[in-house]
């Protein structure tokens, strides 16, 4: 009697716990309808989610016109880059990733290599509009295995942005500096007049991946040394070019040309690009296309009135005499390899990378179209700076993202931080970088070079 009762209680408790949990889990079982298709699309940055959300009804209508019943569920999960990366990797690994995702091209090699992404090559080959994508863009997005796993929908060019009005007032030349010594002389001139740092170039660990992607790499591309050996598929972690770049950071720091204090604190772009630059106190900034809209545009984080009159761009000075801009493929659409609706998902990716849809997104974040045919579409058509950037793509230097880039970026961030804090000089930082890169990547993924 009592035994039965106790067993009943035991069972009831387990059932109760189980039901509680199941109730919670029930929410995420999506109903699989046979006819209509529902795609999931993930956006992890707010302006992109907003821009895309506006266009989705048009996509669904366009599909209906074609006789297909496709709905799109937009998942907004606003996160910083590193947290997003962890989360999406886990989702890919568990086979629970959304059908279509949108992230930067630098994430693609790692995920493609691990087999998480759908091979888009056959689809793109059949797509008439693929030819309208710039050849540089199409080349950059191909993975080491020769296939394409992401559809780019934006490109960026990075330059040195400067305050024309401030430099004019200070009597500093605004012509294109051809070499770093030339630029440094001007920066010293600026600092002598203002008593403050003259240029913000990402450095240190609080800038995260930006230290590498928006600062160090850009400078490095002017040194002539290779950073990644495509034949051996290894990173070249010691080279004259690397030493030269670290020495440059050293020189900039020692002459008080960099806003060191800001660079050592969280969100270093706030006091520098969002406050000091708009205020005219820090007149030179390493910046990218997005600066025209996302940062300093009228709806940006730190609008600058009269932006087009006050701000202009220089290419990066170089040691081989040819100044250059750095361009890269930015955000792209990927389809999960485990999606149940590959054809429809690719349709969505293609649609979002064309016409009005892509124009809206480009203007929302401030990026250049990676293809022709968009220059006349509003609202992109009213953005001369973005269109101009698009034209620069063909002549700029670039560095396609490679697996292990995260680790390299981390090693660079730590080494440059050593310079900022005064603990290391250029040579010591170069050495620290090489060791750190070797540790983070493993000795079989790195090598050294002498030229």
């Amino acid at each position, binding site marked *: 009697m009592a035994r039965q009762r106790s067993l009943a209680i035991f069972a009831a408790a387990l059932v109760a716990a189980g039901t509680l949990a199941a109730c919670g889990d029930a929410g995420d079982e999506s109903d699989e309808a046979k006819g209509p298709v529902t795609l999931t699309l993930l956006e992890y940055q707010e302006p992109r989610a907003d821009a895309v959300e506006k266009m989705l009804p048009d996509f669904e209508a366009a599909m209906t016109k074609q006789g297909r019943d496709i709905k799109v569920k937009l998942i907004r999960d606003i996160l910083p880059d590193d947290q997003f990366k962890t989360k999406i990797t*886990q989702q890919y*690994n568990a086979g629970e990733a959304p059908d279509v995702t949108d992230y930067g091209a630098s994430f693609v090699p790692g995920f493609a*290599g*691990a087999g998480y992404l759908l091979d888009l090559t056959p689809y793109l080959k059949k797509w008439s509009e693929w030819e309208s994508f710039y050849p540089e863009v199409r080349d950059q997005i191909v993975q080491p295995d020769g296939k394409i796993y992401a559809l780019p929908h934006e490109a960026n060019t990075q330059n040195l942005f400067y305050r024309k009005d401030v430099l004019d007032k200070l009597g500093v030349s605004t012509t294109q500096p051809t070499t770093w010594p030339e630029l440094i002389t001007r920066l010293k001139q600026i600092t002598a007049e203002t008593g403050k740092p003259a240029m913000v170039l990402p450095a240190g660990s609080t800038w995260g991946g930006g230290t590498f992607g928006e600062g160090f790499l850009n400078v490095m591309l002017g040194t002539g040394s290779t950073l990644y050996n495509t034949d051996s598929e290894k990173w070249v972690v010691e080279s004259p070019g690397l030493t030269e770049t670290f020495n440059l950071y050293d020189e900039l720091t020692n002459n008080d040309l960099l806003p060191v204090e800001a660079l*050592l604190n*969280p969100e270093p772009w706030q006091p520098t690009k969002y406050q000091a630059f708009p205020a005219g106190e820090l007149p030179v900034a390493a910046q990218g296309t997005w600066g025209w809209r996302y940062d300093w545009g009228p709806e940006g984080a730190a609008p600058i009135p009269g932006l087009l009159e006050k701000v202009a761009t220089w290419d990066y000075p170089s040691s081989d005499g040819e100044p250059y801009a750095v361009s890269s493929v930015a955000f792209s659409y990927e389809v999960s390899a485990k999606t149940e609706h590959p054809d429809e998902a690719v349709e969505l990716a293609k649609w979002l990378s064309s016409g009005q849809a892509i124009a809206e997104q480009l203007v929302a974040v401030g990026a250049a179209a990676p293809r022709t045919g968009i220059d006349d579409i509003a609202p992109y058509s009213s953005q001369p700076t973005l269109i101009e950037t698009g034209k620069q793509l063909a002549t700029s230097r670039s560095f396609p993202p490679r*697996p292990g880039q*995260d680790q390299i970026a981390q090693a660079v961030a730590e080494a440059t931080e*050593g310079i900022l804090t005064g603990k290391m000089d250029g040579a010591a930082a170069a050495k620290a970088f090489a060791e750190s890169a070797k540790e983070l990547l493993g000795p079989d993924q790195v090598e050294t070079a002498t030229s």
Partner: protein
Amino acid sequence: MVLGLLGPSLVLIALFVVGPVGYAIWLSLTNKTLTGFGAQTPEFIGLENYRRLLTSADFLHSMGRTGEFIFFSAIVGQFLLGMLAAVLLTKSTVRAKGLFGGAILLPMVVPEVVASLAWASMLAPGQLGTVNRTLDAVGVTPLAWLQEHPMASLIVINTWRGIAFAMIMFQAAIEGISDDLIEAAHIDGAGARKVFRYITLPLIRGPIFLFLLLTTITTASVFGLIYFLTRGGPGGQTQVTSIYIYEHSFAFFQLGLGSAASVIMLVVVLVLGLTYVRLARVEV
């Protein structure tokens, strides 16, 4: 009968606590990752991960930082302040013991994340940060504590968090000392300090050692407190081993390497744990 009653518990523990230990050892012998071309074909690489870790400055530094963190916050900080509180509040004539005890208990009972948040404000940079404002009164310039002295800040926070634990353990031990013994010492003319040094301290040696062991083990596995505030930064200055493991396993997704680091940490903790279990001499 026993199997039916105890079985489910043992299954759960075996599956989710003991199982992973074995699996960690297995994974540590492979080069399993979740991203990159190697991810599709993990290989058995033997002790390669261990060789890499034990020659890795990053990993060895993280162990060093863990040691530093444990020594200063647990062995020194929590011990001294906890002992102080225990002595002042046990067998003493202080009034409102409950109030003081309750106040000291607060840092220990709140969730980890709340403790971190509270200190984020305390250590806020600039003149308005609470710590800065207090120190301003004695003429110290305001600092960005979590950027310039991150490890020291975390040590203070973890000390703050664990004082109550030490206090409770020592209180219980001191309570157990016979009052007659202390009376006798007083009659012999011993002052409070002498009583503490020659009577109290030797008699509670056992509990002290147990406390040190226990707090070393738990402090070694502190993760949320640190991760919430610094993520192991800036520049890796607060990357203790638990964060090193997380970074390599869930940021770089090098699970083989992360497992090897986990195993090393397990070995160290289990050695300490075995010592504790032996010494606790708990009645079975």
